[in-house]
């Protein structure tokens, strides 16, 4: 089987399964879930096969042509794509399997798995796309699948709103993305990735506009607001879409178009990423909802990747993307298992002491926490160090902020870990928590393993390691500094968290430093407040005002008014018919006089 048709299969199999589920299996959850999972397994297998095979190829087919303007659909399968594809495949498989357990009793299981397949299709489309138009197509489609899946429990108003918010916020990002693509088309004459790689027409506008897309999809400042709300969706969805793959698509896209990145654009990108990382970490500290904590940590990690890209190393960004995909997916799935255990309880302060009840979950979760906090030897450590090293070389403030963020990361992750797993159960739900079946645990184990080994680059197959060519260990003094820094931040962060948070069912920070806590909460809420104000006070009022104008001025005054005026004239003319011969003959007189005068040339 040639790589090309393998790729085709990888792309189309999920679509097929989604179609079959939508048309045939709409009511039957069991077969639907089975089909979807099998397909995802197939996808994962083929993806790995392609990755290991390391065969790069590209193919393209014209899809739409008007004169000189043509849109084509095609694959560009290189190391980068291979890496992303295998991540999507593996994580996707894990999530599918996990969902078998997690969504076992859901009445709309079929719809859910249909959505998952749809998402797989769209995501793989982005991965394989060989030009920006095609990427945009699937870009929108992942947005749709995300909307669909967040909206899964649509009878909950929050879920519906979250889905809406996610899609619209992404649309805002895509506004820039599309403009960027169009501008890129007219400036470079092409949008195919290979073509752009050859072009090297650095354009700040193009770069920044395209970056808007990444800002939306990867939830960077100021468009980050949708991601935390997106946690309304089922947890596996959060794991797949809002942690591992879709939100990472932004970074992936940036890496695809690296050649046309203008230097000064990169600075902007760096700072956006850095600030996002810091902001999200600060927000995460105050969260009580387990998924929200993870969501903000996702934001923060995405910030790292963007910053890394901004500092000119797509390798580092992709490296962190990879490891993050593993441990963040693990974290989410772990939290999912916890939530299942506690009968869909998400408030960490109503859990506690789950170490005994759910040992497997506990250990895998611990691995993930350690990995994200950068415990030496685990995946997160290497990737984060690579980024810190970059920052150290690039600019001191960025380095400082990222380091501080790393400390915060350790702090809130260990806070979470301690409050959820250690101590005694605070609710009977927690006390009766129990481990779920194999479908739930197996993915945890697999991902835990990946989170451990994911950091060792030489373990990656040759086909993929090309991506990480740009990842350098820092040398000499720098190396000591980086190493030291990461260890210090880990110890400080983790230690502070462990020391600070007690057994109590309340947030220690809130009690001891209410001011600081309030500040952080306000910081988190500020963006939502701003957008809320805009929507409610500006957009809505303008809309109503315009509606008023449309009804009163155009439809009313202009149209009805004109009609009314004509009618009044009509009444007047009608009144000329007095019914009296005496007046009628004067019409004749007038007529004759006018005609006569005209004949005499007087008029």
């Amino acid at each position: 089987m040639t790589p090309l048709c393998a790729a085709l299969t990888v792309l189309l199999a999920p679509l097929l399964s989604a179609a079959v589920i939508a048309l045939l299996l709409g009511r039957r959850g069991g077969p639907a879930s089975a089909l979807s999972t099998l397909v995802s397994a197939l996808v994962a297998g083929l993806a790995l096969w392609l990755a290991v095979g390391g065969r790069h190829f590209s193919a393209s087919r014209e899809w739409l042509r008007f004169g000189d303007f043509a849109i084509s659909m095609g694959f560009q399968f290189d190391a980068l794509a291979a890496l992303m594809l295998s991540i999507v495949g593996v994580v996707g498989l894990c999530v599918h399997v996990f969902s078998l357990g997690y969504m076992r009793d859901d009445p709309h299981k079929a719809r859910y798995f249909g959505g998952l397949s749809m998402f797989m299709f769209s995501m793989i489309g982005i991965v394989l796309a060989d030009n920006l138009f095609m990427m945009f197509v699937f870009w929108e489609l992942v947005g749709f699948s995300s909307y669909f899946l967040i909206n899964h429990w649509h009878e909950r108003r929050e879920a519906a709103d979250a889905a809406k918010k996610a899609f619209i916020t992404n649309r805002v990002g895509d506004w820039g993305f599309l403009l960027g693509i169009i501008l890129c088309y007219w400036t470079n004459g092409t949008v195919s990735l290979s073509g752009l790689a050859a072009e090297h027409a650095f354009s700040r506008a193009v770069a920044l506009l395209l970056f808007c897309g990444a800002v939306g999809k990867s939830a960077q400042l100021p468009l980050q607001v949708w991601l935390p709300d997106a946690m309304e969706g089922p947890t596996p969805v959060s794991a797949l879409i809002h942690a591992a793959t879709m939100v990472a698509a932004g970074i992936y896209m940036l890496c695809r178009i690296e050649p046309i990145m203008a230097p000064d654009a990169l600075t902007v990108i760096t700072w956006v990423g850095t600030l996002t990382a810091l902001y999200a970490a600060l927000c995460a500290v105050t969260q009580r909802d387990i998924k929200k904590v993870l969501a903000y940590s996702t934001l923060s990690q995405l910030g790292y990747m963007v910053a890394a890209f901004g500092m000119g190393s797509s390798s580092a960004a992709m490296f962190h993307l990879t490891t993050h995909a593993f441990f963040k997916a693990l974290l989410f799935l772990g939290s999912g298992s916890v939530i299942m255990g506690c009968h869909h309880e998400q408030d960490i302060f109503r859990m506690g002491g789950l170490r005994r009840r759910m040992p497997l979950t506990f250990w895998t979760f611990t691995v993930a926490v350690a990995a994200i906090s950068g415990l030496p030897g685990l995946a997160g450590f290497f990737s984060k160090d690579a980024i810190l090293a970059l920052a150290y070389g690039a600019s001191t403030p960025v380095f400082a902020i990222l380091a501080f963020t790393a400390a915060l990361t350790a702090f809130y992750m260990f806070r979470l870990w301690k409050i959820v797993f250690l101590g005694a159960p605070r609710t009977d739900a927690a006390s009766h928590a129990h481990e779920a079946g194999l479908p739930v645990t197996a993915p945890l184990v697999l991902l835990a393993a990946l989170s451990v080994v994911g950091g060792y680059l030489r373990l990656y197959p040759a086909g993929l390691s090309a991506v990480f060519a740009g990842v350098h260990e820092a040398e000499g003094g720098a190396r000591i500094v980086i190493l030291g820094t990461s260890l210090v931040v880990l110890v400080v962060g983790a230690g502070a968290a462990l020391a600070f948070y007690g057994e109590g069912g309340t947030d220690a920070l809130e009690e001891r430093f209410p001011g600081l806590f309030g500040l952080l909460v306000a910081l988190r809420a500020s963006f939502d407040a701003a957008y809320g104000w805009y929507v409610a006070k500006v957009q809505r009022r303008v809309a109503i005002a315009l509606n008023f104008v449309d009804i009163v001025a155009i439809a009313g005054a202009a149209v009805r008014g004109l009609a009314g005026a004509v009618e009044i004239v009509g009444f007047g003319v009608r009144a000329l018919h007095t019914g009296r011969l005496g007046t009628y003959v004067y019409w004749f007189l007038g007529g004759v006089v006018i005609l006569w005068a005209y004949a005499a040339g007087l008029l």
Partner: protein
Amino acid sequence: MTPSLESYVMLSAALFAVGFLGVLIRRNTLVIFMCLELMLIASTLALAAFSRFNGTEDGDVFIFFILTVAAAEVAVGLAIIVALFRARQTVNVNELDSLKH
């Protein structure tokens, strides 16, 4: 010397105008009708003058037709006026305005 053609034409035009004025200012149906007849006759005068001075007979023949037509018109018109008087007891055109607007 004989009066000129123009004097005849102007005379008939003046008669015509007088008739027209009568139609304009009178309110009595019968008088209006008389004035209309006057207008017809006035034009016959001009016709006669023209045919006399241009030496063409068509005019005289035309007068014959005009007179006949006028007579018929008078007959029908007076019949209508009478019938209307029976119905409305008036010949004042200002009071005959049931059809209007």
